[in-house]
């Protein structure tokens, strides 16, 4: 049904990728392509991880305002990283340079999100305003705990945590590209395999049970996927407040459908175009005067307020 729109989105995405690779490139092409290629791959991974985790979260919560970032998932990951630095006390702790550290953070993150958000989502009727407030409180809580930990660190360790606490699209941890690609790839396969079940889960608890879906099991599985996707994306570029909300809202407007087979693809393409195209513009054309995060958070923040106001009115 939405095939033509998906093709247009795909063309836009490829165009922005080509622009990112070629604009302002001078000198040795081999070097340019390799250097930019790694960053492009990282941007794409982050884009698809964020859009997918947002779609998944909105499906199991049946609303279009909340996203993992708003609920504090990525702050939770940064807190776990800070705890890692604090406990192991490595001066050169680069978030995820080693596979073991990354694996431990990932497991901790998944467990913590299952515990925290699983109990929240599996209540009989979690209402929207309570979820938003819980998200705010959790975000502030995680951030305060991190600040507390950071105060007890020595300056070198402090700088490591500080770098991972803010979104940065121009300075990506390309060192973890391989493991990030594998992990995100696995989570995406999982999400895609669930696409029909997600359609049913998005109908709400009672309708989903009537159609024979185990809502509890589905919710927990989706939370694991979200935990993985958010961890890897945050490890690569740091917390991204409103990007997920922005791109998924656009996806709902461009391809209005309840079918996740369409929605997941459309959101991923829009997310990729926004990140890669936006980064190409700001990095190459405007020479990094304004970081992309500022633009995205401004647009996404305004959208969030509008959606909340509309939700309150209804």
């Amino acid at each position, binding site marked *: 049904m939405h095939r033509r729109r998906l093709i247009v989105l795909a063309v836009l995405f490829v165009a922005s990728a080509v622009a990112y690779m070629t604009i302002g490139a001078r000198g040795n092409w081999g070097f340019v392509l390799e250097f930019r290629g790694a960053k492009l791959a990282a941007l794409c991974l982050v884009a698809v991880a964020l859009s997918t985790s947002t779609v998944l979260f909105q499906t199991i919560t049946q609303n279009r305002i909340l996203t993992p970032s708003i609920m504090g998932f990525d702050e939770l990951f940064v807190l776990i990283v800070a705890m890692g630095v604090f406990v192991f006390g490595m001066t050169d702790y680069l978030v995820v340079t080693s596979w073991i550290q990354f694996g431990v953070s990932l497991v901790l993150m998944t467990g913590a999100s299952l515990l925290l958000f699983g109990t929240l989502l599996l209540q009989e009727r979690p209402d929207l305003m309570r979820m938003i407030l819980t998200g705010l409180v959790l975000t502030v809580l995680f951030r305060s705990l991190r600040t507390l930990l950071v105060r007890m660190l020595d300056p070198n360790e402090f700088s490591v945590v500080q770098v991972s606490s803010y979104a940065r699209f121009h300075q990506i941890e390309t060192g973890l590209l391989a493991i990030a690609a594998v992990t995100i790839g696995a989570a995406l396969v999982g999400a895609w395999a669930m*696409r029909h079940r997600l359609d049913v889960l998005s109908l709400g608890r009672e*309708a989903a049970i*009537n159609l024979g879906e185990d809502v509890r099991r589905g919710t927990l599985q989706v939370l694991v996927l979200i935990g993985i996707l958010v961890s890897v994306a945050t490890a690569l570029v740091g917390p991204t407040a409103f990007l997920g909300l922005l791109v998924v809202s656009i996806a709902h407007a461009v391809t209005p459908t309840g079918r996740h087979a369409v929605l997941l693809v459309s959101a991923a393409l829009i997310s990729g175009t926004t990140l890669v195209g936006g980064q190409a513009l700001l990095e190459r054309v405007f020479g990094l005067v304004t970081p992309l995060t500022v633009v995205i958070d401004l647009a996404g923040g305004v959208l969030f307020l509008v959606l909340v106001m509309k939700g309150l009115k209804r």
Partner: protein
Amino acid sequence: MISVMGVSHDLGGSTVLHDIDLEIPKGKVTALIGPNGAGKSTLLSLIARLARHRTGRIMVDELEVGVCASNTLARRLAILPQSSEIAPRLTIEELVAFGRYPHHLGRPGKHDREKIAEAMTLFDLDPLTQRTLDTVSGGQRQRALLAMIFAQDTDYMLLDEPLNNLDIAASRSLMALLQRLAREHARTVVIVLHDINYACAYADHIVTMKGGKIGPQGDAETLVDGKLMHEVFETDAVVHRIGGRTFVAV
């Protein structure tokens, strides 16, 4: 047959169902009636595994609720809960198509599409296929939800106050349709009704509930009289019998 054996249920610390024993006959329209808060909806949602029962057993034919696979039960029994808040941006056709999900798990075939078309026609939804749920009236929305349950093609259909939002014409045609499903297709319909006159007119079997317990049951002619109205509903409504049919004056 649906058998409820020794089922009790608590909600928020108070007991809403006390040791319920009930058998609902197969191939008939059974109406559950009773005052507000009698536990009718709770009983229905326990039978349809929307909530877990702590004590007792519920059997739907040979399937035990809460033990058998949820998907197996979804092909045997469907429920339309009261006021189901369902994704408002779905089109009517998409919603009805979900009824087939338990059978095809995401890959609809020719037979599924036929069933969907049949349900759309039966519930008079053909002019509305591409409308989204938030743009249709309450009655049309209710018909779409009913069509989804119908497309699910189950032996048992549990309906919790389906006449809400329906005018008298739509109510009568729905009740007549349910009656036909029971008589011609041997479907079992269990329906919570607020209006006792609809129960008298269309149900083969009436079960009364009060205070979380099962009251007297039977068919309209032998069951419903002034004494029952007083005992179950605590009101002194007069019951008339005209031409072999039972009417409660309101």
